């Protein structure tokens, strides 16, 4: 059973729009290596884990990943808040605006909606855990850090 705690895991306080960054952050939200995928992956795999420790671990990681989903969504929300349609179009988000306005929608940076095809839950614990380790390498984060500089990920004014 899940309960919700009305606070972010880490503060997200973005004071100004940045539509380019929002577009790239979508990869983290609804992309194949994003937090939503991570969360559903762990929460799906946990049912067929053989020990209490692995069931506990995957439940806890999956739950924490949901908190990460929330933070990415908060970042995208703050980065696109009050953006006009013209600004969205100039940033390459024109199509996104047509479909979703300024709403948060789980898709990747190219607008491709999130799908269960991004995860695997196969029931063999070694295979599942190996898939988890591969997913956690987080190359996408490193590429985004290279693009933007890693200090941009620390909330401004923090």
């Amino acid at each position, binding site marked *: 059973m899940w309960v*919700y705690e*009305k*606070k*972010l895991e880490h*503060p997200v306080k973005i004071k100004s729009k940045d539509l380019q960054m929002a577009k790239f952050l979508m990869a983290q939200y609804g992309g194949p290596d994003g937090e939503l995928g991570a969360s559903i992956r762990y929460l799906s795999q946990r049912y067929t884990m053989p020990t209490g420790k692995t069931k506990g*671990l995957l439940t806890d990681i999956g739950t*924490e990943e949901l908190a990460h989903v*929330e933070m990415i*969504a*908060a970042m995208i929300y703050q980065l696109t808040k009050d953006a006009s349609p013209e600004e969205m179009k100039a940033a390459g988000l024109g199509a996104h605006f047509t479909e979703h306005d300024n709403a948060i929608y789980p898709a990747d940076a190219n607008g491709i909606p999130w799908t269960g095809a991004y995860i695997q839950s196969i029931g063999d614990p070694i295979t599942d855990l190996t898939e988890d380790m591969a997913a956690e390498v987080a190359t996408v984060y490193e590429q985004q850090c290279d693009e933007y500089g890693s200090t941009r990920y620390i909330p401004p004014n923090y």
Partner: protein
Amino acid sequence: MEYGNQSCENLLLKLQELTFAAVDLNLYLDNHPENKNALADFNAITRELNKLKKLYEAENGPLTNFGCSESKYPWEWVNDPWPWEII
């Protein structure tokens, strides 16, 4: 530690720091259930966290839904701001 005079923002930040530590320790303990030091640290952080949550909730209404926190009248859970709106 005294938090009575801390601003609401600082209290929220302290809650976030403690929760983050509790989450990380929870994950460590899932793999090392027999580690006494980790467990002692986890329980100390949990106690501190529960204390601060009561303080925070007295000012700002319930932090959790579905029966984990009580609310004053009128129902406070629906109050703004929500976490993604706190800039």
